[in-house]
């Protein structure tokens, strides 16, 4: 029977997957994830969004694999929800089975989606640390800095957070790394312009 076949197939698939997962250890199963994300269990931070008060996206970092349409849809929803919040409300929103932790700095909203079990207060500190890094790097950062230097904002974020977790807890070290990488970039660029000047492109 058709139904039976597909059932068996499904079962077979399941067995295969379970086989992968168990191997030498028994795995502890975890809560299934939000929104079409199948296999990223245990991910603490799923994405981070920066957007303006008009809802324009200034930065989007995704730590889960999603299609462009899905990302767009999620962004739209989250942005709408956060913008609808009144100023005196708390910084946490429940959305599907994730928690949205957001904070507004001047004209920019910084928004993280974390797992339900995550410590929301420390997530606020993570957001704050990122803002401090941007501030130190750009010197009194404002939205325009992030608009015109979005790639630098990404670089800084990638020096601070990797795979959704903080990789460096020292402000100084993050900024030092960025500085050095920037210098490396400049060194790489300078020779070319010299050649151009001589006329040898």
């Amino acid at each position, binding site marked *: 029977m058709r139904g039976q076949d597909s059932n068996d197939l499904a079962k077979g698939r399941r067995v295969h997957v379970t086989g992968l*997962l168990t*191997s*030498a*250890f*028994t*795995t*502890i199963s*975890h809560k299934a994830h939000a929104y079409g994300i199948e*296999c*990223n269990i*245990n*991910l603490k931070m799923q994405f981070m969004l920066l957007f303006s008060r008009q809802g324009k*996206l200034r930065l*989007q970092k*995704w*730590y889960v*694999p*999603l*299609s462009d349409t899905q990302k767009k849809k999620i962004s739209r929803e989250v942005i709408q929800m956060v913008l609808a919040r*009144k100023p*005196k*409300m*708390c*910084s*946490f*929103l*429940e959305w599907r089975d994730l928690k949205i932790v957001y904070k507004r700095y001047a004209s920019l909203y910084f928004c993280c989606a974390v797992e339900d079990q995550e*410590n*929301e*207060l*420390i997530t*606020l*500190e993570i957001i704050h*640390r990122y803002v401090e890094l941007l501030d130190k790097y750009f010197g009194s950062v404002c939205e325009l800095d992030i*608009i*015109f230097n*979005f*790639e630098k904002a*990404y*670089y800084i974020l*990638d020096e601070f957070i*990797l*795979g959704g*977790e903080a*990789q*460096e*807890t*020292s*402000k*100084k*070290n993050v900024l030092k*790394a960025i500085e*050095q*990488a920037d210098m*490396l970039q400049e*060194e*790489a*660029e300078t020779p*070319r312009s010299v050649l151009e000047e001589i006329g040898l*492109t």
Partner: protein
Amino acid sequence: MPAPIRLRELIRTIRTARTQAEEREMIQKECAAIRSSFREEDNTYRCRNVAKLLYMHMLGYPAHFGQLECLKLIASQKFTDKRIGYLGAMLLLDERQDVHLLMTNCIKNDLNHSTQYVQGLALCTLGCMGSSEMCRDLAGEVEKLLKTSNSYLRKKAALCAVHVIRKVPELMEMFLPATKNLLSEKNHGVLHTSVVLLTEMCERSPDMLSHFRKLVPQLVRILKNLIMSGYSPEHDVSGISDPFLQVRILRLLRILGKGDDDSSEAMNDILAQVATNTETSKNVGNAILYETVLTIMDIKSESGLRVLAINILGRFLLNNDKNIRYVALTSLLKTVQTDHNAVQRHRSTIVDCLKDLDVSIKRRAMELSFALVNGNNIRGMMKELLYFLDSCDPEFKADCASGIFLAAENPFESLQTFTLEAGSYVRDDSVPNLIQLITNSVEMHAYTVQRLYKALLDDISQVTEDEVLDVLEGLLVSNLSTPVTRGYSLTAIMKLSTRFSSVNRIKKVVSIYGSSIDVELQQRAVEYNALFKKYDHMRPALLERMPIMEKTATNGPAEIQTNGETDSTILDTKHPPNITQPASQANDLLDLLGGNDVVPVIQTTVPTKPASAGGELLDLLGDLSLTGGPTPTPAPSVPISQPPFLLDGLTSQPLFNDIAAGIPPMTAYNKNGLKIEFTFERSNPNPNIAVITIHATNSTEADMTEFVFQAAVPKTFQLQLLSPSSNVVPALNQGSVTQVIRVLNPQKQQLRMRIKLTYTHKGSPVQDLAEVNNFPPQSWQSLPWGCMGSSGIFLTQSRVDGMKTDDDDDDDLQRQ
């Protein structure tokens, strides 16, 4: 060909666009330029073009044609190219893309690059979005880097390993050796990421968990150093040293200490220290305290520590900062099951949070409030919760209403819920609870009926038969009725067929719906039709009032359908006044089960055995055959031989748990050698029912045959006699006749009973009457509310309405 415009230039230009259309035009133009530039394989400006493409991608425009260019950039030797290339890869080349795997080789090369910043780029990209295949291919490289002495790379490798493990869990084992001395690092970055890695491994595998338990002392030491060490500018946040690391360590300790006494004990001190010494003026301190509280509650901490934790949460509740209050409510919700009393102390604060403007806080407070409702505080809580229901947003009403139903002790509150227009939000499965509540509080019936009827009609005028039928028919045809409501209406109409005189009208309505599109309605209508046609004589008995439902801990037993007939409820009890039923409202039992519950029974054949056969299953239909012809109205002069109940549990044994309630047995009668003893049990599901077993013994030398025991109780009680074990009391105490009596005592009055005994002794009939007044107080005093038993249809009491017209006799005479 002119150089492509710079990135900043483009951004500036696009921002000058005044309309969406204008912007789109600019973007399209630039995209075309970029595409042709890509086609020319221009190495110089590839980087610039991709950067522009990424900007346009952020604005929401498609950028897939840049994917391969990103790959080329990654493969380039220039650091600038690599930087943009990897950024582009992370934005455009996730694992769903076909070309994703083409990155693998480049990443592999870069993982071994001479420049650590290039290695860093590769690790970052792999750790953010590497697919399972990629992870499998490159796990070895990552593992190598995990052992490097370069802390910049080591910390990144650790998080990369976390990602690899998440994607390919069976590779976890290969990282085990590298974790050996991770915690001896001084560098906080490495420490932090190592703790994350260890946490990940422990969460995934119990074996790893037990393996890493030995690290608890080391973790405690590190944490201690963080707290005790002086000011460290590098890691300081508002006076606290590296809060991120502290939180992470606390979390790992939580996982390691859970369920393990030794580990828990090893961390008790440090937890107490953190809990008491952390500065709470800023968010960062509270974040650490929060994590500490979570850890304390999860591990096997000593009670003093737990109290400390709950008190911290209590302080959080009073904090001005909404975030802190939210977090406190969340944690309290988690702990309310285990530390109920401690949480109760903060009840008033929690209830205050119901009035908060913040939606998230309100929801948490509501959930917590429901969890805190108990017998002592239910009055106050109900008031608050009802007020909340009235004023809250629609998104809350459904949950709140259902919560109130489950928690409510008397139907007054539940009724209020209904009439507060939250009724439409109430889930179907809450209805049985409501019905059950209503029936249990007998004195509320009149009030209930009025309120419900009012809600239904908005009109309290005197009701005639036709009006009632009009209302119900109106419900049936109304577009606004849900199928469920229609079902209720149809069944209600059906039941009225035995109460009203306009049977024909009802028959017509029922037959119309025999061809209804709604399958449920159709089925009911067809069955009711059959009831009219073939089984008319059974109709009255079948549509009799049904017994009180047991209160259940969950949403009701499976066999009781959720067709709590609120409509028929209204009409049943409203009806008696119309047909001059003198039945006192207080004693009316509401008809609860829909006719369709009973209908299937019709299908079985009707055995004609007498109901009084000792110890036999009392068959529904057997009873009916006893009652003889149809009784057109429900109440009338009920013949004494009417069986006391319609539905029996499947045995003649009482349906209750034997609680040795410690009620002493008593001798009710002792005369002429016949001794009758009463023993007591409390019926678990319903504390208002006393179950008495009589034991009749005969000390004379001759048997007492044809022994019949009858009992009568005052009006406020109801009595039920089950079959006796036999009707011969053997001589010389060689055996006894036992019989079970059930007494419903809703008003908790003192139990009194009049008994009548008839038997034949030595050839001559003997009859005797006696009063039994010496019931021990425990047999009729109430048990605390909260006895919720399993489901079960409780046996009804017989109808006593007709009896009430008999003025001479105070007591009702009933017999089996």
